[in-house]
């Protein structure tokens, strides 16, 4: 379940992001729910999302590299069947990337055949 934060914030949610435009926050139990929230917002508003918080060991351990390819290769060890797009986006936020930045770069890479998407919104290096 996702929710925009209310006054009584829940503390147990591992993934939190906020809209750059309106400040609306999303708190989610999985990183890909943040991506789903981003897409729903995008349909209604020209906005992007910044990560506030991502409590996942893969994100904590992700290298400080300004390249999707390098980060994806490092994250690949943590996941059996593809790195969730949201986890990759959270890892890239350590370089200041917004969710929109990551999604458009992933799209470019995928369309050039440099990324593999074994199932929807899960990525592996080629």
């Amino acid at each position, binding site marked *: 379940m996702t929710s*925009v934060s209310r006054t009584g914030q829940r503390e147990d949610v591992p993934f939190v992001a906020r809209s750059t435009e309106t400040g609306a926050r999303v708190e989610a139990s999985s990183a890909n729910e943040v991506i789903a929230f981003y897409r729903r917002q995008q349909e209604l508003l020209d906005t992007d999302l910044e990560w506030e918080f991502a409590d996942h060991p893969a994100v904590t351990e992700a290298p400080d590299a300004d390249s999707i390819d390098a980060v994806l290769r490092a994250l690949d060890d943590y996941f059996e069947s593809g790195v969730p797009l949201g986890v990759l986006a959270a890892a890239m936020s350590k370089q200041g990337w917004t969710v929109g930045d990551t999604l458009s770069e992933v799209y470019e890479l995928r369309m050039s055949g440099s990324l593999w998407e074994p199932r929807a919104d899960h990525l592996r290096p080629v």
Partner: protein
Amino acid sequence: MTRWNANNDEVAAVSPDITDETNALPAEYFTSPDIHELEKEKIFGQYWVYAGHANAITETGAYFTRTIGDKQVIIVRDHDDEIRAFFNVCAHRGSKMVEDTPMTNPGNMGRIRCPYHMWSYDLDGDLESTPKSFEEAGLNPDLDDEEVCSLDASENGLNEVQTDRIGPFVFLNFADDPMPLAEQAGTLKTELEDMPLEEYEHAARYVSEVDCNWKTFAGNYSECDHCHANHQDWITDIELDESNLEVNDYHWILHYTHDEDVDDELRIHEEKEAKFYYFWPNFTVNMYGTADGYGTYIIDPIDEGRFQLIADYYFSSAEMTDAEQEFVQTSRQLQEEDFELVERQYEGLQSGALAQAQLGPNEHTVHKLHRLAQEAYEA
């Protein structure tokens, strides 16, 4: 007597008599995924649903998209200055054609083109052109070019969706033979059209996802029995005793009287009151009475347990003054207070303990909401 599930009390359809015990929709109508699916057809597929504001698309070819249930529609201004709507679905093999385009950041196109095989359509939906490969049979050894039938422009055009307007508000209807918008809106149409709503510009949009059924929030919007306890800042300027809630066929109006006279400049309408209009199924117009502008809400279900509140604000200029910004913040405070309430109510409803709620005598607007839902399910 309260109808708890544990007592195996029978639930009943919403009684038309508000003094009856079974005057509310049974709780399962708020929590069932099947009902969510049913509503796509029986509610959002039958009644006039708000699409967006005409001022967002003033030029020929300007468009935005709007998704209602599983259906996405392109709303576009055509060459005759008419606003039309089409399913965002290609007549060739059904591809989605244009990207999601919010009303707040509209696009502009000379024609509607499908990126898959490049069929393109006029702004009135007629098929305008197809690539050569649809006119000749070059790759098919069993067909001669002469055997290829040409495609009639209007017979192979886009699937149009009915639109109509109340002032600048554009509505859609997916039903084959719907009641006219004027009938669904009744006096709401004349009342809103008496105000110069089209003179105002879109200034801000907030989209919030809330963890409850859309009807839970709709019910909260529609009554003010919760205001004293929960909107203390707002309530200080309101004379609740003199306020009243007016119910019509498919809309209801919450009249909140201000206790002191507000500067006439700060109101669009005549009366010294805030007027909140709820228009079935999921649109509201908020005439605040303390701002030279107005707001609208769209209460869009995501699933049975979540909805999006799309809050738009209109002022004389798209650039808000400090006072207007402050006003929007007050409005946002009200929203957040209400989100807290409805999420808490929904948590309670989801526990399954309560089989059917009971409405008070001043919740006649909520009663109307529940009756319309019941009527739609049974239709």
